[in-house]
């Protein structure tokens, strides 16, 4: 197996979506290829760092404001539908 072949399977390897046979081949490649080992570790960390550090949280005051605005628009839409 070449590094290119390993990279093609990287996502499925990380997601645990590969057959036992293919996993054994990829593990064998990882055993001797330091670069792919690093790429695997750092890609895994990339996913974890985005998952664990939510960078766009909705602050409570804004959340309340948006919720009120949405429900007010929905009430208007409901009223409009009744009137028509």
């Amino acid at each position, binding site marked *: 197996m070449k590094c290119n072949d390993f990279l093609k399977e990287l996502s499925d390897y990380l997601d645990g979506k590969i057959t036992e046979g293919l996993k054994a081949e990829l593990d064998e490649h990882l055993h001797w290829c330091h670069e792919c080992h*690093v*790429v695997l570790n750092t890609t895994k*960390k990339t996913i974890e760092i*985005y998952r664990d*550090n939510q*960078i766009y*949280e*909705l602050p409570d005051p804004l959340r309340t404001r948006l*919720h009120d605005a949405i429900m007010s628009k929905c009430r208007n839409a409901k009223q409009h539908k009744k009137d028509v």
Partner: protein
Amino acid sequence: MVTIQKKAVEGVTDEMALVHAAKRGDLEAFSQLVNRYDRNIFRIAQHITHNEEDAQDVVQDAFLKAYQNLEQFQENSKFYTWLVRIAVNEALMKLRKRRTDRTVSLDEDVETEEGSMPREVADWSPNPEQLYGQSELGDILKKTIQGLPPGFRTVFVLRDVEGLSTEETAEMLGLSVPAVKSRLLRARLQLRERLARYFKSKRDGDGHQ
């Protein structure tokens, strides 16, 4: 495990009950659906538009559109899947308006070869969080993901940040499963490459890119 599965089933049933009530015009039921998903929709909208004002508009417009079109929701998918599809379309429209060329689509830039082959192979995986304060790290993560083409970052956000399955992501975006998988792989590799540039320089001690 049994308890978790039972809860998940109850959650879906409960959600369908809310959807049915909302379809009958029960605004309180719809309000509960908003409470359930507003944070997710805001996050997805921010990731696609990179603009808080636009993201706020997307949240409002997506929920209003969902409410107005509830009767068209066929219930052969989850309500959330249907809602995200509306929100992604709204967010892409916002992005188009902000751009002068107005050609933004999920297919944009998918042919780029950047990031297909890793260049940075220093191992920064053990502790990058410890090198930065929370807000500095947040800025790096934002800058890094903003550099990805919209089609890549949308797939990454749905799959890896929101934790949806490949099949659900494909359904939400109207893409095939192989297309989602291919974009996810390239998004992950490109993000990894870009983060490596930051983390490597910090580890090397210069603190700059």
